[in-house]
């Protein structure tokens, strides 16, 4: 029979998520309202729901008794990941203000058209926004493969639609279709992996799976099926974190989607994916199952992750070198950063995982800052894309230029910005785990990345404006710029609280 207390506890810890689902329903209805004020209030309501959810997270995880009894592989992931998801979610919501339905709202304002619910999609957009965040948050509470799968898909499915409706252009729809199909392929892959994991252990519950693996390891080594399953699952989930070989969609999709959505894509699914990978690996553990006398992940899995990490950071950085489009460049940079993140995953619990979580925060803030600059600017209502559009930005919009420079420097890992501390903790974790070659490769990659990040610093600050960049203007809505400034301030100020921010 059902253990009611355990079930109540499960629900207790997802109360913030339930609250956000309610928020999604509320905003989806608000978006259909005939009153413009109500429609315009949608992002505000989203931010309010997220802020309350943050308080809620603090509250539900403040319950020490329940937290002690919770049946999760890594309960400590929850509060930190959920907090940063909600906090950065608020900034991302600010980016998206005025993004959706702008032509429609303009024509409504000028009286050229009457309101028709079927033509509006602002409500949906923000509802999906919240649902995707909920999915990512739920990943932290997964204790079985089915929950994990559903949470991952809840993260991804809304993003497909967000990409499609983010801007009225064929490019966005093309991107959405690609994203959807490749996402489905990846889902099939990790689902197959899940099936093999179930087949090799006879359970879908992660904690039980851990015990089963421990038993296998104590016997004659891990089941071969389990290793295949684990590798397939990890590779499939690495679609979410845009790691090699599942990274192909990134550049096209990031370029096709509107900048605020791109910022979202680069952070939320990545967070969900990395947490999922950590949970999956948590079942085999970092104590060296299958490799007697050795620590770390079981060897085949370690080798796989090692290769993925190296290939991901290298391909990401190398790919970025050739880009002329700022968004494609940031897409490749997002790939490279996933490679860095995997160092922490390889290093394992303690320093490694802490570094990963801290890096997620850092990456979320600096990525948001960079995309916020792109979101805050336009040329005749169109997004700016090319790097050349940023040339000499300082002369026209000095604040945006500085934010872009700070974000790029932080992405590069320039001390004392937040990105530096993130990368620093990852590398320290790598060194502590005795993965020197990996750390060296990461450092070489960092050096390569300086080439293109410094272009992002130099172009806005040092270059002279060109006729093309002279035609850049602000977006009419200021919130993206406000978000940019907030994120940049975060990059500069948060390092002061590094000790408090480390999980």
């Amino acid at each position, binding site marked *: 029979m059902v253990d009611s207390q355990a079930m109540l506890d499960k629900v207790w810890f997802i109360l913030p998520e339930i609250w956000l689902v309610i928020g999604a329903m509320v905003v989806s209805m608000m978006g259909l309202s005939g009153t413009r004020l109500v429609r315009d209030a949608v992002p505000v309501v989203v931010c309010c729901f997220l802020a309350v959810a943050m308080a809620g997270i603090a509250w539900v995880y403040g319950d020490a008794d329940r937290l002690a009894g919770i049946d999760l592989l890594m309960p400590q992931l929850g509060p930190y990941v959920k907090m940063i998801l909600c906090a950065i979610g608020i900034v991302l919501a600010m980016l998206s203000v005025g993004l959706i339905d702008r032509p429609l709202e303009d024509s409504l304002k000028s009286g050229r058209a009457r309101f028709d619910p079927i033509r509006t999609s602002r409500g949906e957009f923000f509802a999906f926004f919240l649902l995707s965040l909920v999915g990512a948050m739920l990943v932290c509470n997964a204790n079985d493969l089915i929950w994990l799968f559903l949470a991952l898909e809840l993260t991804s499915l809304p993003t497909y639609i967000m990409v499609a409706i983010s801007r009225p252009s064929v490019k966005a729809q093309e991107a959405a*279709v*690609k994203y959807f*199909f*490749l996402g489905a*392929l*990846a889902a099939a*892959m990790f689902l197959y992996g899940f099936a093999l994991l179930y087949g090799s252990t006879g359970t879908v519950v992660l904690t039980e799976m851990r015990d089963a693996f421990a038993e296998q390891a104590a016997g004659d080594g891990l089941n071969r099926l389990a290793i*295949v399953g684990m*590798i*397939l699952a990890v*590779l499939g989930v690495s*679609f979410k974190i845009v790691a*090699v*070989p*599942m990274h*192909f*969609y990134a*550049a*096209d999709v990031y370029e096709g989607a509107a900048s605020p959505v791109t910022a979202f894509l680069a952070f939320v699914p990545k967070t969900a994916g990395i947490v999922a990978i950590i949970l999956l690996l948590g079942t085999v553990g970092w104590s060296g199952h299958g*490799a007697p*006398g*050795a*620590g*770390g992940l079981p*060897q*085949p899995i*370690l*080798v*796989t992750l*090692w*290769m*993925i990490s190296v290939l991901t950071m*290298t*391909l990401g*950085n*190398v*790919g970025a*070198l*050739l880009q002329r489009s700022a968004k494609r460049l940031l897409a490749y940079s997002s790939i490279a950063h996933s490679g860095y993140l995997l160092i922490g995953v390889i290093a394992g619990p303690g320093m490694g995982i802490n570094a990963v979580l801290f890096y997620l925060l850092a990456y979320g803030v600096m990525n948001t800052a960079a995309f916020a600059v792109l979101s805050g600017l336009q040329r005749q209502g169109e997004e700016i894309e090319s790097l050349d559009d940023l040339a000499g930005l300082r002369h026209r919009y000095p604040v945006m230029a500085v934010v872009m420079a700070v974000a790029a420097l932080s992405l590069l890992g320039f001390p004392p910005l937040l990105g530096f501390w993130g990368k620093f903790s990852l590398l*320290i974790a790598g060194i*502590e*785990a*005795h*993965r*020197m*070659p*990996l750390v060296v490769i990461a450092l070489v990659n960092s050096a*390569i990345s300086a*080439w293109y990040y410094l272009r992002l610093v130099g172009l806005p600050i040092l270059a002279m404006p060109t006729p093309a960049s002279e035609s850049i203007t602000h977006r009419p809505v200021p919130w993206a710029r406000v978000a940019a400034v907030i994120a940049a301030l975060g990059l500069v100020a948060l390092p002061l609280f590094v*000790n408090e921010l480390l999980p």
Partner: protein
Amino acid sequence: MTLATLAMLAPRLAHEFPVADAAGPEWAAWILWLPALSTVLCGMCAALRVRNKLPAWITVSLLSGSFILTAMLFAGYEQPVTIHLVDWFGITWSDTTFVANFAFYVDRLTLLWMLFVTGLGTLIALYAGEYMEGDVGAGYSRFFAGISVFLFAMTALVMADNLLMLYLGWEGVGFASYWLIGYYYRKPSAVAAAKKAFIVNRIGDLGLALAVYLTWHAFGTVQYAELFAAVQANDFSAEAGGWSVQAIPFLLMLAAFGKSAQLPLYVWLPDAMEGPTPVSALIHAATMVTAGVFLLCRMFPLMVLNELALPVVAWVGGLTALFAASIAMAQHDIKRIFAYSTISQLGYMFLGVGLFTTAGAAYHVFTHAFFKAVLFLTAGAVMHGFAGQIDLRKVSGLRHMPGWRVTSYTMLYACMCLAGVPLVTNGFWSKDAIMAEAFAAVGPGYTALAIIALVTALLTAYYTFRVWFRVCAGPVHYEPGLEQHGDAAGGAFHPRPPRLVINLVLLTISAGAVASIFCAEWINGMIEGSTAAGGLPAVHEAHEGAGVWSDPHAWMPYVAGAVGLVGIAIAWYLHLANRTAADDLKRALQGNVVSAWLPRAMENKWYVDELYHGLIRAPLWLLGHILNLLDRYVLDMVIVDGVARIPRMLGRGFQPLANGVLQSYAVSMVGGVALIAILVFVMPEFLEMLNGWIGGAR
């Protein structure tokens, strides 16, 4: 000094002083924050283009607040305390920690230094408010922001509770010094001097950085309280760490010699006189240059890690004193003379530290701060009044001119202090403490050193009074300098006597100088209760015959006083009574083939700048150009561009994969997964190889 005596001393030393183990009052943090606030406010004045004396008043009031707080801290002082301000560094990995917070370590040494730093800082800022009035609206805010930065950094340096914060302050005062020497940034010589000061100081800073690192390496902490506790508990061994522990005192020494302008790193200080005169008085005479002495006093327990360290300090100090004094004798620029005298007097202080008489050294620092500040401020007043004239041959009879009486007589008193006129001057007593110790102490060649110190005292008295007799005494005549004041444009030049504020500041500091005569016992007490408690008597050899001559402390006042008076008498003869005699003497020396080099070499500062130029700068210049060519043609063209091409070529190689076609993406993804699966499962040998390289086994 032999190893045996040191081995006897070290543990004794280590148990002499109390180490902080309590927390001090929170409000003391404002001693540091007030100058910082002042910097910010002056910066805002600069941004808002304030056109009045507001920056000066901000600085003076906030610095005086800092002084009052320091005095309150002193009044309430009972035992060494630490005061925590802000967490700064707190890194922990494995079982190693590196903790360095913004925190104060307050003991008597800290308080002694802070009292005169903030006190003189306030007075000199007051003076500068008047002195810099020509720049109101232009560089005025920048100037006071620089002064505030300096005071902030100096406070951090002196009050720090760990070596890292000390290092921050150390770099900070170096930066402030650079900022203020280069204050007249349109003047090429000022910019060059600023750069020279900065670069020469970097050599010393390197020493300090290495010393901090090695200290942390050897003792596992850079926090004074823990460090001194470790030293007190004899929880270290000079031999255990090998050369790295023994290197610490020498690295500290290097740092101190750089900051305090000792041989061979003194060359920046005379050039630093390009800065405004209040800066010379505050930074390059009274406070910053004593940071080196402070460093050695603060780290005194570490100075015994190598038995040769302190004798080296003593010898470098003694030789610098003589060397700088000999240069000062032949200069004509008043500020430069005082700069060389500063170097010379700093040499005395290091001599004192080297001879274990830290109390004497600290006393000399204290007295020197007062009289040297007065000397510079009076020189500044002359410069201010005579349109930048600073050549002692071109101004004469100052004391007979109306309005210059205070300047002349405060300068006279300061000169007397520097020359060591017996009984009534503080310099006499403080210098005496060091010189007597030089005769009393036993060590390698210390007798020679003592004689050098005595000769230097003679030279000092001579060159000091050379200035005063030339400038303040004698017949009235003057030539204006090159700076044209508005009022001099039309008619004849009229000197502008200093105003009330300047006179008040001069009198106040002179009074401080007089008061400091009676501070010897107090400073002894201050040093005894601090980390610099090396003021224990140096090892004296037991003298057989009793009587006055057996104890140098007993006869030294007479000898030193006599030497000082002789020096003054020579100066009087050559530069007042019979001014042509000096020129005759010079001509006679130059006429003689054997001695002709002497005056010329002294005038040209023993060609040290030229020597450095030839030995260090020219080879570096050549090397730089060779490396530049190498860099441009070999590194850049072949290696950098070549290597940089590799990632881009890789990128081009992978580009066809990113062709934007959905199906090919899907195929690539599945192919990638398949490839990884094959690599992992079909090629176990590959796995073994890769695994060995990755370092799978810890």
